[in-house]
């Protein structure tokens, strides 16, 4: 592998992805900011006042990390799936396939673009959250590393979706029927200690629960699950999904005849 070719190729992909996000900022940045503002007003402020405290924090403070994480993972996923599927649909994926850039670089470049968008939106949602409540970061390293890792997992999942997608409907099915339910059931709005024991155990099968809780631990210092397990699970997902994507691209699934 030519390191120089791949390094410049990677920088080109990331630059292209960031320019794309900025160019269509009305579609990429504004909607999640509006949605999250509504969540803070309705769930945090109006309903939250009646809920009271959760795990020792007022409800607004409790849901803020979950909402930030939710916006990061949905935007990381959405960026990669729409960008790579758009490249397939418009056939300009061929610009990358014919080049000497490795398949690993193509994946990493798109994932980095997805993470960048996730962080941009996450940063904006954090600023919005600070308009509603106070957030003191208890463990900065855990907060930052978990947001990057979770964003990477969902960017990689978005890549898998884009590889298999054949029409635009296919890139909305997974977010609608899998990602959104798992996110809502992943402890964004509640502590799983509120659930009956059976559903607590079922919830432990939801990977988003680990990401949301580890991120919440980073900010508030409270979590429903072990942080070590969260890192292990997220690391396994990153490695597994990267290997899967590499295998798919090497075989040309969804790209080459």
């Amino acid at each position, binding site marked *: 592998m030519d390191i120089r070719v791949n390094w410049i190729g990677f920088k080109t992909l990331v630059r292209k992805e960031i320019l794309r996000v900025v160019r269509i900022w009305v579609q990429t940045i504004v909607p999640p900011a509006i949605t999250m503002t509504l969540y803070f007003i309705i769930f945090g402020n109006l309903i939250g006042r009646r809920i009271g405290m959760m795990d020792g924090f007022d409800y607004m403070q409790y849901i803020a990390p979950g909402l930030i994480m939710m916006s990061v993972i949905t935007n990381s996923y959405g960026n990669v799936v729409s960008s790579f599927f758009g490249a397939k649909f418009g056939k300009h994926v061929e*610009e990358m396939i014919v080049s000497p850039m490795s398949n690993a670089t193509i994946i990493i470049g798109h994932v980095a673009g997805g993470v960048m968008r996730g962080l941009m939106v996450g940063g904006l949602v954090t600023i919005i959250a600070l308009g509603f409540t106070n957030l003191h970061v208890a463990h900065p390293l855990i907060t930052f590393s978990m947001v990057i890792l979770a964003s990477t997992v969902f960017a990689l999942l978005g890549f898998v979706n884009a590889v298999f997608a054949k029409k635009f409907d296919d890139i909305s099915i997974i977010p609608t029927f899998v990602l959104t339910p798992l996110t809502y059931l992943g402890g964004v709005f509640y502590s799983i200690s509120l659930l009956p024991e059976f559903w607590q155990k079922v919830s432990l099968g939801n990977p988003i629960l680990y990401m949301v809780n580890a991120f919440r631990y980073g900010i508030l210092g409270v979590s429903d699950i072990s942080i070590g397990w969260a890192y292990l699970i997220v690391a396994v997902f990153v490695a597994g999904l990267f290997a899967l994507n590499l295998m798919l691209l090497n075989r040309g699934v969804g790209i080459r*005849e």
Partner: protein
Amino acid sequence: MRALSIQNLTKIYANGAEALKGIDFNVEAGDFYALLGPNGAGKTTAIGIMTSLVNKTSGTVKIFGHDIDTDLESAKACIGLVPQELNMNLFDSVLNVVVNQAGYYGIDRRTALQRAEKYLSELRLWDRKDDSVRNLSGGMKRRLMIARALIHEPKLLILDEPTAGVDIEIRRSMWDFLRRTNEAGTTIILTTHYLEEAENLCRHVAIIDEGRIIEDAKMSTVLRKLQREIFVLSLRDPLTEAPILPGFETSLRNDGELEVVLDAKVDLNSLFDVLTRAGISVVSLRNKANRLEELFMGLVEGKHQVSGGQGG
């Protein structure tokens, strides 16, 4: 040095269609090579395999000695591709399309910008560099694909019907550009349905039909295989019926022009001698069809207008 070496290349698609049935051909470095064939003959599949857009079933492909099975990235670095169908992000700017492509080939941004100015200027697109691709005309989009393919200055340029759908003026300016590019040392493989284009530009031709190479030789050698040509003559005084010209087959067209079939062994002077003796005055003369077109039709329709010809 061989720019391209293909041996026993086969492709069977998932639906069972056998697009390539074991083709062999070589392209020498510096050549201008035409790959011709009717629709569905296997040209685009062959190009797809060379550029790794299509997985081969079996066979060997080497680009400047780099085997695509063992040294794919080096092979890819040698190739610039102008595909048949538009494959650019229509919402990107013209400049971004070529500069990004340079980045994928490991060319730093400063060099990429210098080359972008060079190639976009040569292809008369520099003044449109900030426009979205979707705002370009069809001919401009085709020229942009050529600029994009050249931005990493490949040793082998592959053009799959680059002038399809562009007007004659732009087509001719593209021919001039491609000639200059070839003279500067770039090996070019061209597929086209304009056989005049291949005859004008290429020094070597291979004809592929139903997944097999049915002719592969120098252009001059191929054209010499023509046994006869049909000329259309405009006459000063229109005739009402075809004249009988000893040694020549004639027919009268609806527009009053005279068609004469000329055997390859007979020279045009003999025809004019006969016409003069018959008192027929000719104002102008042209080939009924492009010479390569006649040969091509003869080969692919199996009419055996040429002698020999099952090359490989």
